């Protein structure tokens, strides 16, 4: 049987996630790994928005914030299980994305970038200022969902970092599977078509505003789940998760690796999650080096790392 490129990509991703721990010198690396997966998930959602549909959002951390604080607040105030709270956060993010996106996506141009920027700032300000509910800038604790305990009961005993590594990795593979399914589906083609030419997309009957909105809502749900995962594994959350810098980071990861490619963007997330850990040695120069890397990639590899390298290899092979 011939494997499709989708299957190969997913198998590759799963194998890398499963085998990487063999090379981990200490348990700290599980922690870095699960952070990569959490970022990778948010970035996979942005691939659908930026890479497929060609729309930019500068406020996706706002949705990560909603997902994270849903996990912190819903168990306390609504008595929901933290895992269900993550689902609630995702639904809430989807609805808010729909409400925010609907009026904006009817307009052409950069309105989405500006409006989402405003939305992100709004969410992080609310989280920082409503100290009575959210604990303000000091953040608040998040209940343990007890999933690890459940696994232990059936005989799988993982350390805390091992569990979150495996669980976030699984969620990322599922997220990548959904995004790759979408790519070759009628909806994915409609998104890529409107990215290529909006007039032509309209002429073949694609409801351009409607499809942009779908992409925005889906990517918001991805960001929300990513925020929930972060809150649950850290067991603590601060408004920084919804901050402007986090939004910028997400877009940077997406574009660095290659916005059009799920694996490329996950690679971007991995690089930008690991680099700061390595660069702590040159702490003062960390931001400088990151900026430099970003500029070099944009100048010499405008489609992002992975698509550019893949193209060069293909050309070399011919």
């Amino acid at each position: 049987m011939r494997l499709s490129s989708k299957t190969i990509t997913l198998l590759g991703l799963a194998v890398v996630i499963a085998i990487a721990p063999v090379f981990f010198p200490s348990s700290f690396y599980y922690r870095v790994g699960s952070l990569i997966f959490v970022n990778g998930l948010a970035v996979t959602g942005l691939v659908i928005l930026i890479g497929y549909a060609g729309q930019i959002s500068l406020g996706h951390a706002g949705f990560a914030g909603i997902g994270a604080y849903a996990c912190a607040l819903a168990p306390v105030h609504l008595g929901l299980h933290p895992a269900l709270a993550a689902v609630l956060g995702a639904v809430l993010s989807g609805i808010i994305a729909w409400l925010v996106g609907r009026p904006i996506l009817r307009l052409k141009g950069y309105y989405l970038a500006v409006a989402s920027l405003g939305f992100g700032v709004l969410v992080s300000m609310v989280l920082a200022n409503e100290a009575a509910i959210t604990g303000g800038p000091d953040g608040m604790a998040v209940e343990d969902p007890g999933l690890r305990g459940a696994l232990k009961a059936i005989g799988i005993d993982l350390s805390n970092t091992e569990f979150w590594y495996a669980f976030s990795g699984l969620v990322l593979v599922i997220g990548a599977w959904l995004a790759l399914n979408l790519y070759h589906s009628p909806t994915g083609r409609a998104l890529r078509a409107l990215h290529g030419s909006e007039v032509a997309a309209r002429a073949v009957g694609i409801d351009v505003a409607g499809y942009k909105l779908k992409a925005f809502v889906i990517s918001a749900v991805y960001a929300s789940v990513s925020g929930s995962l972060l809150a649950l594994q850290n067991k603590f959350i601060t408004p920084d998760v919804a901050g402007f810098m986090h939004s910028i980071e997400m877009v940077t990861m997406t574009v660095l690796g290659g916005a059009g490619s799920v694996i490329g963007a996950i690679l971007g997330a991995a690089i930008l999650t690991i680099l700061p850990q390595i660069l702590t040695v040159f702490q003062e120069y960390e931001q400088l080096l990151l900026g430099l890397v970003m500029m070099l990639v944009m100048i010499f590899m405008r489609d992002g790392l992975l698509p550019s390298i893949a193209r060069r290899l293909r050309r070399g092979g011919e």
Partner: protein
Amino acid sequence: MSLLQIEGLGIDFGGLRAVNDVSFSLKAGEIVSVIGPNGAGKTTLFNMISGVYLPGRGKVMLDGEDVTRLSPHLLARRGLSRTFQNLQIFHAMTVLENAVVGHHLHERGNILADLLSLPASRRSSRESEESARRLLDRVGLGRAAEQEAGSLSYGALKRLEIARALALKPRVLLLDEPAAGCNAVETEEIDHLIAQVAAEGVSILLVEHDMKMVMRISNHIVVLDHGEKIAEGEPAAIARNPRVIEAYLGAQATEANNADG
């Protein structure tokens, strides 16, 4: 009864009357060409009919229904499809995918089925793909199916746009200079294709500068100059009309007549 009826259509850009009071109609299976010098308002007229511009005056009737203010995707749903003078190709997609996208309105399923790659979604994609391959064969691009669309020649992209527009199974097809940039052989192929499509009952509205082609395949010709309709009629009558010759045809008309004779 006419399938597409244009009544007193007009639009101004600032103080400029780009198109004014243009009326004509198309029956099913008829090929009507709009000709006129550059800047006469042909493409503007197309953009109004296909919903890209909102007309300032007048009406567009499709099969008896007033569709004047409908957006392009709703017009597509009612069976009106078009190609573009300045190519509008999905460059990052393959040739096949470009043709598949044309099937958008015939694809079933929903976003959830697409995310989960449910059988309904996969079947829908497969059906579109089979039909797209047939259309690509028909316009002579069958062998280029897997190439990135951006790598095709100008003439091939023109044909790809026609394949994409045909994928909608339109009742009315607007072709904006389909033969521009094509060599003589390609032009003849497009010519045959248009005649075939019309023979299947699709009404075709054509803007084209190749006068031989226009004279050969049109049932009816509408002549625009400075945004106004200055003449309309059968090709032979248009070719003899002194106003038309003065405004536009000139040497080209005599040439086409000689070619016909």
